[in-house]
């Protein structure tokens, strides 16, 4: 079937306003939709609450939108809601973080970054950072701490998983002393890091689930005058992380553009409605970024 008239895209987001990434994503999504003349977007936000997201799915089904884009608050908990949409013949595109495998039958496509891969990339960066000059990264040794995202949320879990698994392979000599959640919150992770600094006399590296938390850790390390001893590595490069990197205080991160993320999702959704062929796992690129190659990237806008 072909859609000659307007296509209505419904999107339910995870938690807009919790950080700039999601807000920028939302703006990019709305802008992109406005840029296409035959697309109308219904934009909803679940505020991080699974129950509310399920209700929003129901409302979108009720409105009979042409396609639903969902940024799951939880990869498993939204599966039945997604199933209900597919049973109502509304195709679903999952964005940013994937849903559980059990739900794969009910979605048209996933569009977003590969969070497990991101964690793995960060692990590789960590090995490089800890290797002495000329030493092979796999020989690297050291003690590091990890500040993870909000417990129970898929992105946090996947990044942690990817990081820990890859680290064990890529440089078995590096030991994770401790992991504590920073809840995607800079102030919280600053406090967590302060505790780590008191507890451990030597910290060679810090991995944070995103740059926002990473900069919190950096703040704490600076205040304790201990930036020199450690390599700080993050993910989802934020403007503050980019700047810290330029200042030489921050080792590296993963570049992930919310604008790409949003546009990718919208394009995938439109393609699905138009009956075009789309890859089932439609990842967009999330390359490593360090001081050495940061010129290749524009500074994040968030």
């Amino acid at each position, binding site marked *: 079937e072909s859609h000659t008239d307007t296509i209505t895209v419904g999107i339910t987001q995870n938690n807009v*306003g919790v950080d700039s990434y999601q807000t920028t994503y939302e703006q990019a999504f709305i802008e992109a939709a406005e840029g296409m003349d035959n697309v109308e977007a219904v934009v909803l936000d679940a505020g991080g609450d699974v129950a509310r997201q399920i209700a929003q799915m129901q409302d979108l089904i009720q409105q009979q939108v042409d396609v639903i884009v969902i940024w799951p608050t939880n990869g498993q908990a939204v599966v039945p809601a997604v199933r209900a949409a597919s049973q109502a013949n509304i195709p679903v595109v999952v964005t940013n973080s994937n849903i559980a495998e059990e739900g794969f039958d009910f979605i048209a496509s996933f569009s977003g970054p590969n969070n497990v891969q991101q964690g793995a990339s960060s692990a590789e960066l960590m090995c490089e950072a800890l290797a002495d000059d000329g030493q092979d990264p796999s020989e690297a040794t050291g003690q590091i701490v990890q500040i993870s995202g909000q417990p129970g949320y898929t992105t946090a879990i996947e990044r942690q998983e990817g990081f820990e698994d890859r680290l064990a392979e890529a440089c078995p000599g590096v030991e994770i002393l401790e992991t504590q959640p920073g809840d*995607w919150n*800079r102030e919280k992770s*600053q406090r967590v890091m302060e*505790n780590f600094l*008191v507890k451990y006399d030597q910290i060679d590296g810090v991995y944070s689930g995103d740059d926002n938390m990473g900069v919190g850790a950096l703040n704490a390390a600076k*205040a304790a005058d201990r930036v020199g001893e450690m390599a700080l590595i993050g993910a989802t490069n934020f*403007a503050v992380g980019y*700047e*810290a990197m330029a200042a030489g205080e921050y080792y590296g991160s993963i570049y992930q553009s919310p604008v790409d993320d949003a546009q990718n999702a919208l394009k995938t959704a439109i393609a699905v409605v138009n009956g075009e062929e789309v890859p089932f796992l439609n990842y967009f690129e999330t390359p490593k970024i360090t001081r050495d190659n940061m010129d290749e990237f524009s500074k994040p806008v968030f």
Partner: protein
Amino acid sequence: MSKVETETAASAKGHAPDESAPGPDTSRSWVQIISAQGILIAFAVFLLGFGLFSDRFLSFENMESVLRSSSIIGVMALGVTVVVLSGNLDLSVGSMLSFGTVMVVDLHDKIGAAPAMGVMMVAVLALGCINGFLVGILKLNSLIVTLGMLSAIQGLTLIYSGGQNVDIAPSTQSTTWFRVFGRGDIAGLDMPIIIFAVLAILLHCAIAFTAYGRRVYAVGGNPTAAVFSGIRRGRVVFSTYVISAACVGFASIILGSRVMGSQNNVGQGYELLVLAGVILGGTSLLGGSGSIFKTVVGVLILGFIQNGLLLMGYPYYAQWIVTWIVIILAVWLDIAGKRGRLFSPIA
């Protein structure tokens, strides 16, 4: 909640009328002795207990770290204590902290540090005035009003920032004098701790020793009798919310300066931690009894629980479970002492 008042009044028969001079009273049981200084004893036991398990716990460095990370919650708790003493609640402080921090950080680079702080203070005080007007003048229930404000201010913050994180540019971070509040120190003692201590002393004196403080206690203890005694209850309640908002303003400055940036939800959930600190200190939610000093102790206990468990390597959620137990035990011992028996007499 007010129903409990009748119950505690009825069961308060064990309370020594003259606390400072026990006199001929021979019936003080161990419960009473513990509870009279219960919170301080608990505090000491805590410090010692953790000290045994972790050699770093009692280090100066760690103490300072705990004080510093407690200072933001602590400053907010000072203001909330005043509100609670006058018999009301303030659940909007968490959202208000987000609002204040986002605002002061955002404005810093735009209009300079001092104006930013000024504008933010005015804005936060205005929110306090709204709370004060609704609860003090219109006499609406404080729990619900501040619950509504919690949500509304969260919305305001997001509208203000457009949902974006705000940051102070890295180039100015190291040069602005705004950094003093969160990162500076005097004679090696961190500035947040000093601000917390100074505010605590000021407010403690204001509440414990001035006529204003007496009015706050009277309004909390019996609002009707306070009015009959010529106290303008509306104004007193109004002022407590302004004080609470001012404390949130100070906390925002510390937070903004410490982090040099802010998310829109930094303060989420703080209202309950703050309240937990106030309760743990032994200030009664019914109003009219408690003190600023007690709140300081309560907040520090919370801080040390969190820190101690972390140092001992427990997962972060262990602190929630321990906080649960400690809150109930502390308040229980407190009222058990007042009524002179461990268990409630209610059948």
